[in-house]
């Protein structure tokens, strides 16, 4: 057996000419918590769907737990667990029934089934709610149940597609703790997709940044941040003369953003006074100046020239989400 839980070989998928995933080659080690970070539409979910055999690649292939996703789809399925981005529970059944059904689909015998179901329910602290209908669950409880379900058949690899999308901050924190605990206690490889920088930063051993279907950078969060180099100085200004800041290029990289300027520099502390002088000399009114260490946001900006916006949801997606929300509340 190889040391990798996942290896992709020029994995590609196009939808009528649109390249959703473009010749991706990544290797994910066993036991690793790997994050695929990118904006909506970057190709994260498409890639996940291919790895879990729901979608056939247009070209290339991948190995999951040593099994080929095209020729050995059934072996791949047995060895993985998935928590989809959209809820995929039957809300007319109880939590326990959902888990039972899942266990039976994976061919787990009756006694073993009961033992494991109780075990995973305990892990996500849903023992007391297990016999209530899922439609009475909150969003966070549903997500926890889905994580539990993804674990019932003891997969070697667990895929989490945007595990905290649409959850409130407290619940997110809670889910993060479960994921951390999973990693600590079980020898399981976790692949998680997210467009939340803080989530990737906090949880992942390594991160692959994906944009327009390509992996544009890969490494530990710190490695990635070090690539940006030094410090980030953020200058907020509404001045029309904002372009004059381009003259500061000698200090480092200068970027104009919606509400000011971003500078990537070394020894930022020593440059702030110079910036203030420069602004005063050029009569640019500055609202604020701040200095910080680079975040993954800056990493993304560094590689793509764009910022990941969290509300990057198009009209159709919004409609669909509203509809789903309504259906979940009503009926």
């Amino acid at each position, binding site marked *: 057996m190889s040391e990798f839980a996942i290896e992709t070989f020029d994995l590609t998928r196009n939808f009528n000419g649109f390249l959703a995933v473009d010749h991706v080659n990544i290797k994910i080690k066993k036991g690793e918590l790997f994050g695929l970070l990118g904006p909506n539409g970057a190709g994260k979910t498409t890639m996940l769907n291919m790895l879990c055999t729901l979608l056939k690649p247009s070209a290339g292939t991948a190995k999951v737990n040593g099994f080929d996703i095209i020729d050995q789809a059934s072996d791949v399925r047995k060895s993985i667990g998935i928590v989809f981005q959209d*809820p995929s529970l039957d809300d007319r059944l109880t939590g326990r029934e959902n888990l039972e*059904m899942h266990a039976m689909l994976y*061919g787990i015998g009756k006694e073993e089934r009961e033992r494991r179901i109780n075990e995973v329910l305990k892990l996500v602290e849903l023992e007391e709610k297990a016999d209530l209908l899922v439609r009475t669950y909150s969003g966070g409880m549903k997500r926890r149940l889905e994580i539990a379900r993804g674990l019932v058949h003891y997969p070697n690899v667990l895929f989490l597609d945007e595990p905290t999308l649409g959850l409130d901050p407290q619940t997110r924190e809670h889910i993060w703790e479960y994921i951390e605990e999973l990693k600590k206690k079980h020898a399981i490889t976790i692949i998680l997709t997210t467009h939340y920088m803080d989530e990737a930063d906090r949880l992942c051993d390594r991160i692959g940044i994906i944009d327009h279907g390509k992996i544009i950078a890969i490494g530990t969060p710190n490695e990635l941040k070090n690539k940006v180099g030094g410090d980030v100085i953020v200058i907020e200004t509404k001045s029309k003369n904002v372009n004059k800041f381009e003259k500061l290029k000698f200090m480092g990289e200068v970027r104009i953003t919606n509400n000011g300027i971003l500078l990537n520099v070394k020894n930022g502390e020593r440059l702030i006074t110079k910036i203030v002088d420069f602004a005063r000399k050029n009569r640019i009114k500055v609202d604020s100046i701040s200095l910080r260490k680079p975040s993954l946001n800056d990493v993304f900006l560094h590689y793509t020239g764009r910022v990941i916006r969290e509300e990057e949801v198009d009209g159709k997606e919004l409609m669909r989400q509203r509809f789903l929300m309504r259906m979940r509340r009503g009926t």
Partner: protein
Amino acid sequence: MSEISAIYVIWLREVKRYVREKARVISSLAMPIFWIIIFGSGFSRFNIGMNVGYREFIFPGIVTMALLFTSIGSGVSVIWDREFGFLKEILVAPVSRTSILFGKMIGGSTVSVIQASILILLSFIVGIKLNFLIILRTLPLILLISMGLTALGLSIANFLEGHEGFQLIVNFIIMPMFLLSGALFPIEGLPAWLRNISLIDPVTYGVEALRWSILGTSNLPIGLSLGVLFIFMICMVIIGGIGFNRKK
């Protein structure tokens, strides 16, 4: 082995969902009863030219109507599973799509058979005298009809992108199939071109078969009805299976 347990799991889910929804159970029974009592009484003086009264005449037709709505509804419900993500959970499990399809089909049929059986037990309302033989020959027929119709529903679902198409199915498939089937009047009374359409409507043969088994009288020979129903079911299973395996 795991394929059989997969079929069982999916069957169990369909049945559990049905039994749990009291409102659905009651409304699915109320509708046919209203038809029989209200519509049947309104036309009770209508002479259909057979040896039975009008309410008795339409009774097998109304049972078929219940089968038609429930079975196609169960088949098409796979759209909801798709829309609400649950289908993904099943599709990503290590079981074949054929098993999933069969589980869904048998589950949907079970639900319609339960419902139709209750209706048949209520047939005394229109004065039909049941006996053991009637029940014995009617139940397998109901199963045959509902399997074909559930598979039809599953086949239709493969062509629909979302739940919005459901009303379209009711208006353009279920209602014409019901009205053309001769459930409410003998198709002999129809102009030739309409009667020919009736004869390609599989529901016509369902109605005729049930009329034969419940009333002991029918216009079409039972052998023909059985043959058509059987071929219809096989075709629908194949079409549904191909579409389902191809999807995504």
